[in-house]
């Protein structure tokens, strides 16, 4: 399978015309299955977080049920969310403008 670290989006999807929308949040939601050490490792791998930052986001997910792990344009946010889902972390995109 493609390396999730470098994977962006499915090839056909990348060609989809995306509307020039404002900033989006990538939000990771809690689940009772994935180990804390696994979530920390995935955050470090996908976002390049250091240990402390990855652990902070993991604890937010664990204790608050969700953590905003990235903000930016939709196309890149979708790519991050896709990669997180390849690692079986439940992630959703939310528009910053909607809040």
């Amino acid at each position, binding site marked *: *399978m*493609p390396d*999730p670290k470098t994977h962006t989006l*499915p090839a*056909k*999807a990348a060609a*989809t015309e995306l509307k020039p929308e404002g900033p*989006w949040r*990538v939000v990771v939601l809690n*689940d*009772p*299955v*994935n*180990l804390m*050490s*696994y979530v920390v*490792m995935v955050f470090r791998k996908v976002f390049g977080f250091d240990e402390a930052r990855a652990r902070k986001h993991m604890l937010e997910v664990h204790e608050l049920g969700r953590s905003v792990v990235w903000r930016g344009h*939709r196309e890149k*946010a*979708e790519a991050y*969310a*896709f990669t*997180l*889902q*390849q*690692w*079986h972390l*439940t*992630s*959703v*995109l*939310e*528009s910053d403008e909607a809040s």
Partner: protein
Amino acid sequence: MKPPERRVEVILSLAVVNPLVDVIRGLVTELREAPPLPHAAPESEPDFNAIWADELVTGRDCDVGVLLAIFDGDFSLEGRVCFDSENAEPFIRACSAVRLCLRDRRLAAVTDEVLESGDMDAAKLDVRTQKAFLCYLFLATLQELVIQRIEDGTIG
């Protein structure tokens, strides 16, 4: 000269682990049919959603194939499994996929709190659920081990 590849070998008890691997093998068809996580973005187009889902399923199938391959060969003869830079990440992803599927398909009777803590007397469960729960814990243990070895540079 290419340096020798670092890898980790683990010797497992065939008598204990074989029944748990059978649980995984028995779950493969259901796992292949299980829907992936839904598309993460609101208002996305159906074609895009379908491609998203297909890619996730393809990746998951590949990862589970790697996991099953680890439990073929040397494992079936002497209980030995090996982790290296090629199979470590697909393996830990597959562990998550299988554990999520176990939760949905075999462990519905077990609360999320118990799953999260792992604190339960498995003897109180019926045999099928008991095996699924032990398999769930077994995969978490191996996953933790491999993550530690990736992070300390033993695998790579």
